[in-house]
């Protein structure tokens, strides 16, 4: 009950339009309206003003592109003249078409949003927390962060994503490299430098299929070329000397053809059974294989329909709206709540067991204090609080600042904070905190874990919203 009051109190106030924050934002955006990609929380890079999206590490995408371009370049330079003369002019034509197709598919796969789910707004996150707390499943702490639903008469577990603060839709997975939840997550492909998900799976598939054709085609042509040449000059070594590029192509194609053909075959099987690599590896539906033909609730039980649905289905739009402008009246995730609201909130917070959500809310509130310069922000990394850390900012009266809970938040994210006037901590609470979460290496002189007892529960999994 009290917790609900706290939610009501913080959320609307912190997030509704208040004169100071409106002015703040108006001031900020008076210079230039910002696009949403500029404040995107995931680890992605954007180019061309948000039109092109890439994972943070481009992986080996330059290598992939380089290999393809070099191999084709050598093909056109060394093999084509000979083969055009001796066979047919269509050889470079086919090669050219395949090459263009491969490169376009590759670039589309790399630069397309794979189906990233935008993170939950703070209101949504609070609402979900409320539902978890009040539902019957959380009779013990920590509350299980899974939800079971029925899909086509089959039980599927939805997991709660701590980073995105929402229950992941079915078939969605969180990619740690990109730090995003991706719909119909297949895998993160380093060759392509991006995740492969709902929106770019068809591009990925056409990339590997066309690459298999291209590799096989070049391989075949090079073999033919070398064979014809060695027949003409009656010596293999001489043939190779005349066309050294062919050997390079041969080596590249030989080594890549196995993996690419294997990958194509594997993905053809996945497409036909409407599975993702993720599901296949985890064996999500394989235990049911014995009972029915396919335990996969998403399969249409027909190979043709599965293929059509995956490859030719409607193209969903990008949900992250990269090029949209940030609305002026909505706060960017780091709201600056006015100071006046905090004392009553803090008073209520006394002696309550804070759940994780309240901690998140407190974290936001506390960071708003940072912006007001009450405590030095320090570096945004988890560091142990030690005696060496001292609060250099002027400490306002102990009653107005939020207590232990917020300092604990500081401990998670920032170095500093604890202000000397707060050291009313009791050793008992320190010990309890020690035992709950050893990650908080709190030294005794550090402050105030005084009033609030925090149950950290599944703390290691906490994903705090990274602050700008």
């Amino acid at each position, binding site marked *: 009950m009290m917790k609900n009051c706290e939610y009501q109190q913080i959320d*609307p106030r912190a997030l509704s339009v208040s004169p100071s924050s409106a002015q703040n934002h108006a001031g900020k955006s008076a210079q230039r309206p910002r696009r949403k990609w500029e404040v995107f929380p995931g680890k992605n890079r954007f180019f061309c003003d948000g039109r092109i999206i890439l994972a943070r590490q481009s992986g080996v995408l330059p290598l992939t592109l380089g290999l393809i371009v070099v191999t084709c370049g050598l093909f056109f330079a060394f093999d084509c003249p000979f083969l055009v003369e001796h066979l047919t002019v269509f050889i470079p034509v086919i090669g050219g078409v395949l090459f263009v197709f491969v490169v376009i598919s590759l670039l589309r796969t790399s630069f397309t949003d794979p189906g990233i789910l*935008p993170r939950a*707004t703070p*209101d*949504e996150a609070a*609402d979900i927390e409320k539902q978890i707390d009040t539902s019957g499943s959380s009779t013990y702490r920590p509350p299980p962060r899974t939800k079971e639903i029925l*899909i086509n008469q089959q039980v599927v577990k939805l997991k709660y994503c701590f980073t995105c603060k929402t229950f992941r839709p079915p078939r969605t997975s969180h990619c740690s490299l990109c730090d995003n939840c991706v719909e119909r997550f297949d895998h993160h492909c380093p060759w392509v430098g991006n995740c492969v998900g709902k929106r770019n799976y068809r591009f990925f598939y056409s990339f590997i299929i066309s690459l298999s054709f291209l590799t096989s085609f070049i391989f075949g042509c090079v073999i033919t070329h070398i064979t014809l040449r060695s027949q003409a000059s009656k010596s293999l070594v001489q043939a190779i000397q005349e066309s050294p590029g062919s050997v390079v192509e041969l080596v590249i194609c030989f080594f890549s053809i196995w993996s690419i053909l294997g990958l194509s075959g594997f993905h053809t099987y996945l497409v036909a059974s409407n599975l993702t690599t993720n599901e296949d590896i985890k064996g999500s539906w394989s235990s049911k294989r014995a009972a029915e033909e396919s335990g996969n609730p998403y399969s249409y039980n027909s190979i043709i329909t599965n293929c059509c649905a995956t490859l030719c289905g409607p193209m969903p739009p990008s949900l992250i709206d990269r090029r949209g402008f940030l609305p002026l009246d909505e706060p960017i995730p780091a709201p600056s709540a006015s100071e006046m609201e905090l004392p009553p909130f803090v008073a209520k917070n006394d002696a309550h067991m804070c759940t994780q959500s309240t901690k998140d809310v407190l974290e936001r509130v506390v960071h708003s204090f940072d912006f007001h310069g009450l405590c030095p922000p320090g570096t945004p990394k988890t560091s142990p609080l030690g005696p060496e850390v001292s609060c250099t900012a002027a400490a306002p009266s102990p009653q107005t600042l939020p207590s232990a809970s917020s300092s604990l938040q500081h401990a998670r994210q920032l170095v500093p904070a604890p202000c000397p006037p707060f050291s009313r901590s009791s050793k008992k609470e320190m010990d309890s905190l020690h035992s709950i979460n050893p990650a908080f290496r709190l030294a005794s002189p550090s402050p105030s874990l005084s009033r609030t007892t925090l149950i950290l529960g599944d703390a290691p999994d906490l994903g705090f919203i990274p602050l700008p």
Partner: protein
Amino acid sequence: MAETHSLQDMRQQAAVAAKVFIQRDYTNGTVCQFQTKFPSEMETRIDKQQFEETVRTLNNLYAEAEKLGSQSYIEGCLACLTAYTVFLCMETHYEKVLKKIAKYIQEQNDKIYAPRGLLLTDPIERGLRVIEVTIFEDRSLTR
């Protein structure tokens, strides 16, 4: 988005009393459908039938967007053959339906929800996760 343009005044004048989130309904798979369960917070403001009607219409529109029919297959094959460059000049079927949905929501807001102090947010602005209904405080709002 455009739908809240005319309602922005209301938003600035009235304080938000609560926000209700209609979650997705996954019983039919990953297609975009929303739960038609009527949230209790809105009982005082709007008729249950009316609301369920709105959600059902939205569900039908989303189903139409994601329908696997001949049109989507033709579009898919054409896209594949042109190496997906056709999307640079043409709007996909899904996007067309999304525009229809945006118009429908704006119309519903203007006619039905705004007079009752409610505001529907287009789900696409929330990543198709929820339909967010903002309940404004009951001051005498006249429209």
